């Protein structure tokens, strides 16, 4: 009898399926596009600060976008930002771990030792720009470079807290959700990050 009921229910579903929420899908796709368009450049820059390499940064941002749209598109839109940044940060950490492993393996292999993370080894970095840059812009770019270098020197959690709170403008609760930790931890990480950055950059920065 139970089997009959199951079959009957299955038949009813087959015979009269619930209408597909096409309008709802379109609506959240549009919202999702707006959200991604708004967030993508900042997300890319944050990934670039952490990873240095623009191609790697693009890869992790694209991966985060895909994961968000595939797995969490139907979630309420206010949850997207913390979810997106959690996915992004996980991607960044995965890539950094892979790099560390690769570096260890490379040290055991014969041949010229090359550090892919060492910016000074890129000869293009030492070539002067042909076009003279506007001094103010140049100073800003240099200040940003110093800030990026200091951010990279921070522990990952502090860097994450600083970028989400300060660059992305997330509040403590959202940041805690993105970092999967308590609000108290966010405050601690952020405060330590600000102090460490100011100590590194100096008063004149």
């Amino acid at each position, binding site marked *: 009898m139970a089997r009959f009921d199951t079959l009957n229910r299955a038949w009813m579903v087959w015979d009269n399926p619930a209408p597909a929420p096409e309008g709802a*899908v379109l609506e959240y*796709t549009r919202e*999702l*596009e707006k959200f*991604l*368009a708004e967030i*993508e*450049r*900042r997300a*890319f*820059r944050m990934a670039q600060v952490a990873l240095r390499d*623009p191609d790697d940064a*693009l890869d992790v*941002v*694209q991966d985060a*976008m*895909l994961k*968000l*749209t*595939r797995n969490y*598109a139907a979630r309420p839109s206010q949850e997207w930002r913390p979810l997106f940044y959690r996915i992004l940060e996980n991607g960044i950490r995965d890539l950094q771990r892979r790099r560390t492993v690769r570096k260890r393996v490379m040290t055991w292999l014969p041949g010229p030792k090359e550090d892919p993370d060492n910016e000074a080894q890129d000869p293009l970095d030492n070539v002067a720009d042909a076009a003279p840059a506007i001094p103010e812009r140049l100073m*800003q*770019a240099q*200040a*940003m470079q110093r*800030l990026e270098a200091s951010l990279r020197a921070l522990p990952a959690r502090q860097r994450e807290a600083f970028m989400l709170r*300060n*660059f992305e*403008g997330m509040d403590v609760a959202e940041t805690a959700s993105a970092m999967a930790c308590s609000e108290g931890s966010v405050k601690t990480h952020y405060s330590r990050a*600000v*102090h460490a*950055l*100011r100590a590194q950059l100096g008063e004149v*920065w």
Partner: protein
Amino acid sequence: MSEQDNEAFEVRSRALFQDSVDGLDMRIRSRLTQARSAALDAADGRRPWLFGWKMWAPAAGVTAAAILGLGLWIGSPIGHQAATLSDVQSNFEDLDLVAASDEGSADAMDMLQDDIDFYDFADKAANSGPAA
């Protein structure tokens, strides 16, 4: 390090970051747009690509054009001419069949000759009137 200094630092670092975001080059912007589109397609099209109408649009267009072209060609004088030529060809084939139908027993042309003789005789008989 006062609270006010910290705030000034936060404001400055945020402004610098925003400047660097605004100054992203077109290559990066374009690649980000592509990544976004790919992600949205993935969310949008969970159904297999085989069933996407966009996939079949070019093939459907080519088929429709071929059908239209065929229709126009048949309706045109060239099409008619082609049809006439084919009719003539089939008539020749019929004649060959008639010619070859009695192969082995008698010549088909003899049969035709017999028929002509018969019709000639019938005509004369009709014109001469009934025998008194």
